[in-house]
């Protein structure tokens, strides 16, 4: 029999409650029966005393023998109280046991008032005593005492008390058995949760609770399961992240080491070859720098350390600036960079620097994955908000890969990743910055036809759709 601590506490509280209730009830029932029997005794003895007093007042020998017979029949003892305060038996002898006689009762009787009280003798027997003054001309015996033994009542009460104790014990054992079951059943889900959280603390996040109820404990169980799932997801993502980051960092470093070694060992035939190797080292170092910068940005964003400087932004201006920056790249690949910014667009609240970075990342990607055709940047007003779209006529993204393109280090063309360049973090940064500025990102793509990224920003509340600030 094992008893867990919460079960023990619950059980102890219930048992304490049961004990308090049973004790109070027992005392109340005991008093009730004692008082009932005492009252019954008092009433009967008073009645007998009244009858005996009436008989004694006639003061003839027949009455005395009647009193004796009735006393025997009623199981009471009758005593005369003489005018000098002495108690005598019916036959006129002095009564040897005077332990039940009270002086104040005798005084009351001699002054003509009735008296009644409970008394006990040297052996511990209880009596109910009623003293009744007699209305008679004879002054030698002015009152009688009726002494009724409480032996039977005491025995009955004692038996009743024993039975009460037995029923109390029975009720206590019954409650104890039920409390044991109840505290076990009530504390089991909590113990399961405690065991599960202990396992989670030790790094086992695959465990799940079986939840059978929908109350507060059930909801707590759901929350713990949700927490375990989140932690598991976090661990898996972190593992993938570290695996990717080590791979992504190792590749350019390997290039740098290899070409630097070739150059330092003098294994070059011509200046042209040397320049080529130096160019590769430069490109790889730039790539490494971009990777570290992007990683730093992402890490800061995920830790919530990036503070956005939000201001009223003219998106057209931001687009023009970004276009200017990537124009040269596009021209090198003979790509046509077009814009459609004719709609009157209201200002939005955003961080100029981050918004420009978002746009540069999208344009960089578009240029990187487009070999011929054009890149179109459009800014339009739609019902759902301001839509900034960047479309290209590049290689496109297969449908089954679209949900993963915003994951860190995810690449559509894995085999040609080095050829295309990039860090694999650009779209993650785009998504995070856009969402932090209240927008959302949508993608439409068709392999071989091109891709369109749409950034949708809701209209600002303080600004009407006509483009004016209020």
């Amino acid at each position, binding site marked *: *029999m*094992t008893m867990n601590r919460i079960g023990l506490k619950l059980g102890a509280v219930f048992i304490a409650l049961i004990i308090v209730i049973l004790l109070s009830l027992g005392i109340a029932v005991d008093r009730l029966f004692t008082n009932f029997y005492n009252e019954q005794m008092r009433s009967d003895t008073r009645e007998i005393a009244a009858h005996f007093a009436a008989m004694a007042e006639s003061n003839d020998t027949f009455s005395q023998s009647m009193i004796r017979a009735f006393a025997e029949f009623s199981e009471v003892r009758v005593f005369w109280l003489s005018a000098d305060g002495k108690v005598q038996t019916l036959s006129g002898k002095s009564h040897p046991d005077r332990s039940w006689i009270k002086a104040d009762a005798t005084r009351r009787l001699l002054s003509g008032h009735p008296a009644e009280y409970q008394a006990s003798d040297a052996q511990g027997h209880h009596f109910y005593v009623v003293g009744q003054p007699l209305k008679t001309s004879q002054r030698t015996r002015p009152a009688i005492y009726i002494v009724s033994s409480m032996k039977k009542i005491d025995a009955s009460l004692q038996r009743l008390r024993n039975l009460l104790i037995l*029923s109390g*014990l*029975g009720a206590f054992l019954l409650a104890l*058995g*039920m409390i044991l079951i109840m505290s076990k059943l009530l504390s089991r889900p909590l113990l399961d949760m405690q065991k599960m959280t202990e396992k989670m603390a030790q790094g086992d996040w695959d465990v799940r609770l079986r939840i059978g109820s929908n109350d507060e404990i059930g909801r707590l169980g759901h929350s713990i399961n949700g927490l375990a799932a989140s932690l598991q997801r976090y661990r898996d993502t972190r593992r993938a992240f570290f695996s990717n980051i080590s791979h992504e960092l190792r590749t350019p470093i390997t290039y740098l080491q290899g070409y630097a070694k070739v150059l330092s060992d003098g294994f070059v035939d011509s200046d042209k070859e040397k320049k080529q190797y130096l160019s590769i080292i430069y490109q790889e170092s730039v790539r490494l720098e971009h990777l570290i910068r992007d990683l730093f940005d992402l890490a800061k964003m995920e830790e919530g350390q990036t503070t956005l400087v939000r201001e009223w932004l003219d998106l057209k201006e931001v687009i023009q600036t970004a276009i200017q920056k990537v124009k040269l790249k596009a021209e090198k690949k003979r790509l046509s960079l077009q814009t459609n910014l004719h709609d009157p667009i209201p200002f939005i609240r955003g961080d100029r620097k981050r918004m420009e970075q978002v746009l540069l990342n999208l344009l960089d990607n578009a240029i990187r994955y487009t070999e011929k055709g054009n890149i179109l940047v459009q800014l339009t007003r739609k019902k759902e908000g301001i839509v900034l779209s960047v479309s290209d006529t590049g290689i496109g993204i297969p449908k089954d890969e679209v949900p993963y393109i915003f994951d860190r280090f995810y690449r559509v063309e894995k085999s040609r990743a080095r050829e295309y360049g990039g860090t694999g973090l650009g779209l993650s940064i785009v998504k995070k910055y856009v969402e932090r500025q209240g927008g959302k990102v949508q993608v439409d793509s068709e392999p071989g036809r091109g891709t369109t990224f749409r950034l949708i920003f809701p209209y600002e509340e303080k600004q009407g759709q006509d483009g004016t600030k209020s």
Partner: protein
Amino acid sequence: MKKMDWFFSLFLIIIGLTCLFFSADAFGHESFLTFGITFFKVCMWTACPVILFVILYIWFVYRRK
């Protein structure tokens, strides 16, 4: 709950009920027959509301579905 827990709890419940029925049948009715009759009466009084509650619960669940 383990079997031992169930056994211990049921043992306490049975002892408790025996004590209660014994004291209920005291004052001249201490026989196995009266004990059995009282036990049956108590069981019936307990079973009736339980059965009623179960029927209502099943009906309520069925209505909700």
